[in-house]
């Protein structure tokens, strides 16, 4: 493989490769978490095997909310510091967050159908989560539509901060509103209300998903840096 002429492009490509490597390790960890959930975790007595979707749905929701929170924080920092790397990180985190949201919004209804008797209900938690998903799909569409880099970064930063405002409402919605959605079993003031075997599997799965988030965002951020280096190289 030939060495790129532009050092910035070379560094961006190396970062992308590192991100993909971390993602590959995270996928192995995800496979191990699936094995642990399916083979070595007890079946819940009232819900049966469908309860094991919990070990995918909760980590996906955690990663989506983490990703969108970091978009909001990076966006606010961008408006303050005007560092283009913050804007590119926000873009990377938003895209990965949308992907985790798709996992969350598909596994949720698959669990809900046998347990609630319906695929979907318009309660506060589900509706706010769907709004957050659409907001960040709009965020990515906005970025694709605006060609001036400064305008794109400024407009999308405002939208990213709006998304960050929604995140605590989503987490607290099960306390603030009457909702069908189960209440938190781990991220709450009191001790986790899960048997140890289930908590262990959940924590392993959360760790695998979080590592996957880190790997995917690193790769996606590296791609954005590489694209910027190529554009500035073309312009020179």
């Amino acid at each position, binding site marked *: 493989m030939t060495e790129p002429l532009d050092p910035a492009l070379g560094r961006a*490509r190396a970062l992308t490769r590192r991100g*993909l490597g971390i993602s590959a390790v995270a*996928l192995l960890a995800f496979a191990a978490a699936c094995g642990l959930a399916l083979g070595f975790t007890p079946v819940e007595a009232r819900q049966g095997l469908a309860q094991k979707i919990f070990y995918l749905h909760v980590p996906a929701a955690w990663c989506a909310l983490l990703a969108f929170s970091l978009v909001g924080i990076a966006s606010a920092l961008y408006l303050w510091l005007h560092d283009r790397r913050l804007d590119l990180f926000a873009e990377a985190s938003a895209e990965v967050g949308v992907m985790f949201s798709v996992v969350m919004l598909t596994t949720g209804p*698959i669990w809900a159908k046998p347990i609630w008797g319906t695929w979907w209900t318009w309660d506060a938690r589900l509706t706010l989560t769907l709004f957050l998903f659409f907001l960040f799909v709009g965020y990515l569409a906005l970025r694709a539509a605006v060609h001036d880099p400064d305008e794109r970064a400024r407009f999308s930063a405002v939208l990213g901060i709006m998304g960050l405002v929604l995140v605590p409402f989503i987490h607290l919605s099960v306390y603030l509103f009457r909702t069908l959605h189960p209440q938190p079993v781990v991220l709450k003031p009191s001790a986790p209300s899960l048997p140890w075997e289930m908590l262990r599997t959940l924590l392993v799965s959360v760790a695998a998903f979080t590592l996957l988030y880190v790997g995917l965002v690193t790769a996606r951020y590296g791609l954005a840096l590489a694209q910027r280096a190529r554009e500035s190289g073309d312009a020179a």
Partner: protein
Amino acid sequence: MPPDTGGYMVAGYVVTTVILLVYVGSLWRRARRV
């Protein structure tokens, strides 16, 4: 005896795996182009 909801569990795991692999694959393809 727990209810028979194994089909939903399988669907959840298959859908999640497919979404993750498709996204990683798309990043991989984009990385090959830059």
